[in-house]
């Protein structure tokens, strides 16, 4: 069961970065996910689309170790995980990073703490090496897009950043940890036009740098633009898979509207 538990996999010869097999999720008597089979290739951008409450967020929470599935199997780099051991911390060790719309950064904390929280650089007694953490955070800030000379320092609190800046920080953090899979949960919600462009550019950069990305998005035009394929989720089930070249944004919108009308 647990051959992959906690093991740092460096093998590049895998086929799928993450694969879910027969995953189900119940919240008490409420069934949130039905028999989900989903594989994410090692270098593709997969869009997850569907209405509010369709189960997209639950799906990625299971994928990234935030929630345990009620049943089913999870494979990372083709080897099966022990579900009891799977956690956010383990996902991080397996190079899976998540950027949430509004839950990735703590508002009142300085940026450098936000970069390292959950995996601090500490001595063996657990005391944080502040100088080293700040130094690395400073490097990430400089290298992240849009932050050169913007008057933001590693000591700035997140509350003082704009929405786009927050996404930039969260994405920069994921890049720093050399994630093989970056999960984006509506990163462009509540962003201005210019900032949306930056985020989409970043999503393309994930692809060109040889990584994989799972991308949840409500704006179909954005996801149509960058995704290799789009998975349509409806009422806890995967109902279809669409390739952008097979369907225009308008057709896709119409399809989703029709889907909602079915009962």
């Amino acid at each position, binding site marked *: 069961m647990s051959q992959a538990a906690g093991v740092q996999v460096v093998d590049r010869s895998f086929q799928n970065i993450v694969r879910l097999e027969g995953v189900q999720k119940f919240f008490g008597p409420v069934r949130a996910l039905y028999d989900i089979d989903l594989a994410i290739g090692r270098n593709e951008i997969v869009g997850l689309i569907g209405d509010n409450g369709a189960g997209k967020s639950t799906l990625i929470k299971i994928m990234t170790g*935030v929630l345990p599935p009620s049943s089913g199997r999870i494979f990372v780099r083709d080897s099966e995980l022990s579900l009891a051991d799977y*956690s*956010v*911390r383990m996902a*991080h060790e397996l190079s899976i990073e*998540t950027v*949430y719309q509004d*839950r*990735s*950064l*703590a*508002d*009142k*904390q300085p940026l450098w*703490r936000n970069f390292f*929280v*959950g*995996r*601090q650089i*500490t001595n063996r*007694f*657990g*005391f*944080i090496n*502040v100088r080293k953490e700040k130094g690395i955070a400073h490097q990430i800030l400089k290298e992240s897009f849009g932050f050169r*000379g*913007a*008057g*933001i*320092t590693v000591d*700035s*609190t997140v*509350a*003082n950043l704009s929405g786009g800046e927050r996404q930039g920080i969260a994405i920069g953090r994921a890049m720093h940890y050399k994630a093989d899979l970056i999960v984006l949960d509506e990163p462009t919600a509540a962003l201005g036009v210019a900032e949306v462009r930056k985020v989409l550019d970043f999503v393309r950069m994930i692809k060109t740098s040889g990584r994989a990305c799972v991308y949840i998005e409500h704006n179909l035009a954005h996801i149509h633009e960058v995704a290799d394929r789009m998975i349509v989720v409806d009422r806890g089930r995967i109902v279809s898979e669409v390739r952008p070249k097979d369907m225009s944004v308008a057709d896709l919108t119409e399809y989703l509207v029709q889907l909602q009308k079915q009962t």
Partner: protein
Amino acid sequence: MARPEKASIFQRVEGLPIIVVFIVILLLFMYLAPEVFLRPFQYTTFLSTLPPVMLLAIGLTFIIGAGEIDLSFPAVIGFSGFVLAIIFKEGQDWIVSATETPEGGFLASPLAAELIRWGGVVVALLAGVLIGFINGVLVAKIGIPSFIATLGTQFFWYGMATVLSGGKSYALRGAEDSTVWRTLVGRPLSSSSVDWMQRLPIQSLWTALIIVFMWFVLNRHRFGEHALFIGDSNPVSRVVGIDVEREKIKLFTMMGFLAAIAAIFQTMEVKNYFGNQGQGYLLIAIASVLIGGTSIFGGRATIIGTVFGCFIIAIVEPGLVATGLTGAWVNTVRGLIFLISIIFYLHIDQPHRRGALFARLTGGRASGGGGPADNQAESAAPSRR
């Protein structure tokens, strides 16, 4: 345009506003009542009465910083104090009679008496840890809001102390001859020729060391960082990989441990256990933490602020009495200081309000409250953009 948070010296020196307020109040009292505040004895008295409150407030700084509250710590002062007092006073007699040790046996010896008293200290600490751990489980695992859970445990543990003690108090006569007393609350310089040095209580040294250590835990340790992130947002803490439930249990357990130390200092210092001991500490400790600048909403906490918050709360009483007002005014003034500081921190918390506040305070000059360093940051910022 300057980023507001860089402009304020109040953000860069921990607890600066409260330190300034404390110094102003102290100077005021020194001016109004020099016969009390320019002589050392008021301060040596503080050093023996403040440590328990200080330890409670330090623990609460973590709890409130993590967005929780603990109302049960006065009951730890009661229960752990009772555990210590009864073992201290009667422990040896029990053991001697239970084991039927003969007159000259080891367990009846003075050395065994000392060891049993130290055992009482350990059991009192364990009692505090247990109470804190139970609080943590009730809050984190069972999901009772901490206000309610610790209100319940507060009644329970005071009740337990009353049941087990039969409502009696325990006077610890002769305690000052024991190594426990001398080590924990003794007067190490009592043979000094300077009169005020004779009165220096050693628990103030232990408390100071604990405070320094806890500052490092809050500001430099993984645990303190997790507490602040949890106070900031539970969902964010979960997705960055913090085990929120476990950290909360640890926080409450730590609070129980610190409260037990406070109980030991308190009981040893007054050489007495009485049934409702600790009851006056609840609001004083909470007020000290909040006056110090720890956010009632969680996510921001300051040890230095808490220390000076304790100083301010403590100095009001002798200060008002010495300046000729009656003691009846003490809580009125404390309440006033409390409310003013809460309003001040609310404004500091929110950048747009902060600018407006400073503008008002300085007669229109925006965010000019920080002095020269403040202006430097203001003028340097545009070139960086």
